[in-house]
């Protein structure tokens, strides 16, 4: 099933939750909606499910207008963050639910339903849990049952809301691999919501980064990582250090910064902002440089340095602790910052605007919308 979302908007009271969403999902694709809480990703998922309704916009699935269909008629598999299993039913009855509520004319016979449930139990590797109640299951087991219950109706689209949000790290990794396997086995079009980059990039064919009700960027892991389309994506992807620079003929220059590793940018001359990850900043001792090391803490593998500039404030840098250069990086040492990678965005001149528009560069064209 291919899904086309266009011009979707939604308000809750005074808040714009979705501000014009355009998104296409291909048949059999596994797509992640990635964003911080409040970015509208769950609302978008619920609109596709028919659990919420947009104020405006279109939702077409295989050419059919889904906004005319009730949730019951869409045949979607929805997996809730907290699973929403029916506590008074056994695993078997939970899995069978979607089949037993069909209208009499379409409802499979008892034996057919039982066989289908058995097949699912085997497929999900939960045969020995069949007669347990949800309260007797671990988080990971509940997740499998919730997914099985959704798959039982052979859904057109599988939608998952923070599917691993309530699980601990080790189980998350296992289930991630397992879910990828399930997706490949069933071939169903799948959309899942997450705030975890690692999860999104490892699992999804394509990642949709959302922020404040807009789609900020759509693409693959590497492209989003290396070429964030907006300051929002840059920050969300970990480029938390923001430094003012000046552009001259595509080259950036900044106080106490060595920016020679950065590519030339097709941006107008003048002031701009540079977004960098702390691990892409390499401080080098230089008595003439304006930056001073304000503090140095270690987590074993990495040193975290807080760097202070008399005019620009503070920046953070992560340096491998065992690197030979690390010894000289002691508090109060003067350093020059070599920026190994980063993204430059023009300074936003509109007063009060929260974020700049994506910069149309040739190298961004495939990734930025």
């Amino acid at each position, binding site marked *: 099933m291919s899904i086309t979302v266009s011009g979707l908007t939604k308000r809750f009271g005074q808040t714009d939750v979705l501000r014009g969403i355009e998104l296409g999902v291909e048949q059999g694709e596994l797509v992640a909606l990635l964003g911080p809480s409040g970015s509208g990703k769950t609302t978008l998922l619920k609109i596709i*499910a*028919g*659990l919420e309704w947009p104020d405006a916009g279109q939702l077409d699935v295989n050419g059919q207008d889904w906004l005319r269909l009730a*949730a*019951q008629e*869409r*045949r*979607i*598999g*929805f997996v*809730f963050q*907290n699973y*929403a*299993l*029916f*506590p*008074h039913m056994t695993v078997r009855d939970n899995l069978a*639910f*979607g089949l037993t*509520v*069909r209208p009499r004319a379409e409802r499979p016979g008892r034996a057919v339903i039982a066989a289908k449930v058995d097949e699912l139990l085997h497929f999900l590797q939960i045969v020995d849990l069949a007669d347990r109640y949800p309260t007797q299951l671990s988080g990971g087991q509940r997740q499998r049952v919730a997914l099985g*219950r*959704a798959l*039982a*109706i052979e859904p057109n689209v599988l939608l998952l809301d923070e599917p691993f949000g309530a699980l601990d790290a080790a189980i998350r990794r296992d289930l991630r691999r397992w879910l990828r396997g399930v997706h490949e086995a069933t071939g169903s079009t799948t959309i899942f919501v997450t705030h975890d980059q690692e999860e999104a990039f490892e699992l999804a064919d394509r990642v949709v980064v959302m922020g404040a009700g807009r789609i900020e960027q759509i693409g693959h892991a590497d492209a989003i990582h290396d070429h964030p389309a907006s300051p929002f994506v840059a920050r969300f992807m970990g480029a938390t250090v923001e430094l003012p620079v000046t552009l001259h003929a595509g080259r950036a220059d900044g106080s106490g910064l060595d920016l020679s590793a950065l590519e030339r940018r097709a941006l107008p001359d003048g002031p701009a902002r540079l977004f960098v990850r702390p691990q892409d900043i390499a401080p080098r001792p230089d008595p003439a440089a304006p930056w001073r090391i304000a503090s140095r803490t270690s987590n074993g593998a990495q040193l975290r340095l807080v760097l202070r500039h008399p005019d620009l404030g503070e920046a953070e840098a992560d340096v491998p602790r065992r690197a030979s250069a690390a010894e000289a990086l002691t508090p109060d040492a003067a350093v020059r910052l070599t920026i190994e990678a980063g993204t430059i965005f023009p300074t936003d001149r509109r007063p009060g605007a929260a974020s700049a528009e994506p910069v149309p560069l040739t190298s961004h064209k495939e990734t930025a919308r």
Partner: protein
Amino acid sequence: MSTPAPPYGPSRRGERILIGLAVGLTVLFIAAPLAFIFVRAFSQGWQVYAANILHPATLHAIWLTTITAIIVVPLNVAFGIAAAWAVAKHRFPGRGILVTMIEIPFSISPIIAGICYLLLYGRQGLLGPWLQANDLQVMFALPGIVLVTMFVTAPFVAREVLPLMQAQGTEQEQAAVTLGANGWQVFRRVTLPNIKWALLYGAVLCTARAVGEFGGVSVVSGNIRGQTNTLPLHVELLFNDLNAVGAFAAASTLTLIAIVALVVKALLEGRKAA
């Protein structure tokens, strides 16, 4: 492993005194008067007790109280579910007001409810002329008794079911909807099983209150012996007749109903917590 008794004496003694006080007061103010009802009811032997219970007026009162409860409890169960469902699972304007409205019968004296109904449906009341023209008797008849009892007992089921529904949220219902269930299937197969014990608990409380209702009913029933006298009213009537044994015999049936309700309630409480 057994916990050794705390070594310090005084607080241990204080604990004993408090427990003794609680038990003593319960016996003095609750158990003893209840036991006294049965002592007085049987004070002249089984035959007199039986004769009083089997007196036509008493039997009629028992029947009237029973029929009132049989009508009121299912209606209030339906109302309670509907109100709790609306408030817990939906957001709509006036929702806060509805929550408060549901609780009004708890804070209003039943006798005020009785008077309100009298002013509304009575002969001189707002709807009185219309009712009379259509030959409908509400006041001083079964409909009036049922209406007032419904008003007084309306909050019980809603109050029990509402917190549970709110705690459970709407995700299970949403899950059922995405799996293709229609409204009735969602209610019967997902919502209802989740609230079943709270619902029964509320129904038991509602029954106990419906059977024992006095103040409101006494205003609207007119106390016609053998016609509109419910059991609590009948007890008072017999007592005013100075028929102590008769009054206590009738009271003993009410007490029995109350005790049965209490036992059922205690059993349900265990299930509800499980």
